[in-house]
């Protein structure tokens, strides 16, 4: 896989026009010319439309996000789709990026943890709840946990505590015992009811 080159900064090709997200653009490097040229298809990542060269479609989504887009919020914890640290959302449904090919999500809209906060950097209410409830320790499971909880709350804006507990049962955390994560989901839920 290609290494990200910090010099290919904002405005790098590969993004549809109008891209302004520094986080997104930094590190993205399209295939060099000479690679097989299939008609690129698109993928929306955090609201930005990306054209995906054919060579990248065979990659697993996690490697593509981490290495090609430098979106390193999604973590590689197990590589077999069990721990949930690589969870991202495709059309607001959680997917395990480590077990998903880029080709499988073409045409869909991806949200990674980098895309959850407001453009000005302000935390999403769910992120704020994680901070306020002490739900973060080492932080390695946090991005996947937040996105899993986000997808859950979008569908269930008024959950019971047990529902919240079940919602994150496929995301492993070794630090927190989950209790404060559940606190955070419950604390954020009212926001979803009102706003989303």
């Amino acid at each position, binding site marked *: *896989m290609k*290494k*990200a*080159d*910090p010099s290919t900064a904002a405005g790098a090709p590969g993004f549809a026009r109008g891209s302004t997200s520094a986080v997104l653009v930094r*590190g993205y490097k399209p295939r060099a010319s000479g690679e097989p040229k299939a008609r690129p298809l698109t993928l929306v990542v955090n609201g930005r439309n990306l054209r995906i060269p054919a060579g990248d479609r065979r990659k697993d989504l996690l490697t593509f996000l*981490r290495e090609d887009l430098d*979106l*390193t*919020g*999604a*973590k*590689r*914890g*197990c*590589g*077999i789709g*069990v*721990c949930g*640290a690589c969870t991202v959302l495709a059309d607001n449904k959680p997917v395990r990026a480590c077990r998903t090919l880029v080709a499988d999500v073409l045409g869909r809209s991806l949200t*990674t*943890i*980098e895309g*959850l*906060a407001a453009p000005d*950097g302000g*935390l999403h209410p769910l*992120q704020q709840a*994680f*901070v*306020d*409830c*002490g739900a*973060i*320790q*080492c*932080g*390695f*499971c*946090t*991005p996947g946990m*937040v996105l899993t909880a986000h997808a859950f709350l979008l569908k269930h804006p008024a959950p019971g505590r047990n529902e919240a*507990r079940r919602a*994150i*049962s*496929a*995301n*492993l*955390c*070794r*630090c*927190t*015992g*989950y*209790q*404060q*994560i559940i*606190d955070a989901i*419950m*604390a954020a839920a009212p926001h979803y009811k009102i706003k989303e």
Partner: protein
Amino acid sequence: MERGRCGPRQVLMDKLNEKAWRNDAAAKVTGRARFTDDIKLPGLLHAVPVYSSFVHARLLAVETEAAAKSRSVVCVITARDVPGSNRCGQIRKDIHVLADDKIRYHGDVAAVVVAGTRAQAIAAGRRIRVRAEPLPEIIDPEAALAPGAALVHEEYGTNLIHRHVIRKGDAARGFAESALVVDQEFCTPFVEHAYLEPEAALCLVRADGVVEVRGSMQHPYSTRRFVAEFLGLPLARVEIVGTPMGGGFGGKDDTAALVCARTALAALLTGRPVKMTYEREWSMRESYKRHPYRMRYRMGVGADGLIRAVQCRIVADGGAYCSTSPWVTWRSTVQCCGPYVVPHVDGEVLSVYTNHVFTGAMRGFGSPQVNFAVEQLVEMAAAAAGLSGVEFRRRNMVRQGSTTVTGQVLEGHAVSMSEVFERVLAESGYEDKLRRSSRGQGENDYYGVGLAMSYRGVSLGAEGTDVCAAVVSVQFDGSVLLEAGIHENGQGAESAMILLLAEELGVDRSRIVYRRPSTSAVPDSGTTVASRATIMGGGAVSRAAAAVRLQMAGAVAADLGCRPEEVRFAGGRLTAPGGRDVGFTEAAQRLYRDQKYPYALGVFPAPRVDWDESCGQGRAYFTWVYGCQAVELSVSRSTGRIRLLKAWAAHDVGRAVNRAMLLGQFYGGMAMGAGYGLFEEVAMTGGRLRSLNYDTYRIPRSTDMPEMTAIVLENRDPLSPSGAKSIGEPANELMAPAIANAYFHATGRRRCQLPIGGEK
């Protein structure tokens, strides 16, 4: 004395008033925090380890030619390329960083492949052939001790790593005086730390010739020693730079340092930055585990229900390398009888080499095993004596001024064993629930409640040198830089240090920046293990802050019309007893203008301890913490599945520095302890691990855990400059025996082997 009550409801209420805070929370919740594998550098190379298929074998050759010619491979490193010493170890230098003479376990690294991409490095690694002559595999620790057994390390002439003894009083007399004796064997398995982030290292050789190491490790100073010795460099030429780390739990000490050492060698040989990120399978195969223990216990009890004597023989499987086995088993020795007064003790704790994966530090460090035994043993003894477990504990537990089994008088701090115990009984409604426990009777699913309690020596004790440093530097504009020789493992250590300093200097925490820690900046402060970060790091911060306060007060005392030591620091101001005051920033500037710095290195040496290894007696730890946990569970009559219904924990932490993070230690420790009790076990065939990922090694999920109630007791410790003690390990060492006792109360069956069950 402030006491807090923090059930889940209380926590939610607290949230409205007091929000949790940690300095790295925003970075972690947005994905901005860069863990080691998230860092990218120009010209970066990728390294991967190569294992052999052997468990125990004489190494003949590592054939690397084919791999070296593979696509994008820059070099293949074997033991022959090591410029310094290939032998590492904190206690005994028996780890061969790259296999040279033998393969001693399935996780020994034979070579490291360095290539342009990780995928190509992995592909090339498959082309390496390790030729070796198999040797008899030493799997059973007892058999390993038999005369004539094959040796894991021939040079030591024995497979015995260490033997601790504890001799107090006259055990024979104690048993003769006993009205009853219970005798039981207990066994515990290999357990994996299962930190979510696998090991990773990123190394480069800077232009100034310093080897800079970032990595996922919790012992920067031992990593520096390992790297320097491996490369043949002085300590000053190696710098470990703190990097966010995805969990450690004791597991990122030795193995993590080895990963860093190999990566550093790759950087040195190639002249380029090199990253080595472990797959989960490599991490579980190579990294050390919690020791499996086989424990034979006898306890004699008098007609009055008082424990007269304990005899125990404990054998720990140390695996292929010594690692911290002598220290782990030392804590087991000191705490072998639990928090009870026992006049006569005769015990021995052995650690033994085998060809299993090696074992070392894991949260608890020798206590989870003995607690599992002792906390069941006391209930068995109580039943035999016709007493309830509650009454038996009340009669035998340590109290203020009690003498421990190592002859240490518990004084100079609040001995709150009874306090935590009674609080758990009251909060959980324990005795009522115990009466309702099914004891194997009835038609429905079994139901039971159980508890366990412990005391725990704080920090390293007589294990070794225990000292910590911190640097406080007030800037000209009144902002403050802080660095301490402790490591952020995820527990919130940096935040705790910031909060303590803010309080000591009487300024808002927003003024304080925790400097990225570096081994080149703060003197060797030891490892961030043993639940020592808050007490030791906090001690050093308090000392540094006291020195800075004196400097600043000295600059303004004359103007304020008082003596420097009378100046009070609060609300961002320095105030004299008469009320005259000056701003914190202004005081700092006054000092700078006087050509002085508001700057101090604070050092906290742990108070003295002493130990006589020949009889296992002495003042083992300078202070102790006390804890009790209870759990309520049901057991399915048809499937045997255990479901935890509720859990309670009370711990005396000295003082709560950062309450939300403190509760996180409670809950996380209880969850890890529940996994130990219910289902965690590294499956092995011979010396080969079958549990290599989360599909074959199960850790607790959210749905495995019940709602937990945390009861925080705060008896400030006079020997801790900040008043705070520890929580990380105490919270983790009680849930397994509590579950075992609850299981007994539910089903009437004693489980003396971990894990206890539940669905697999």
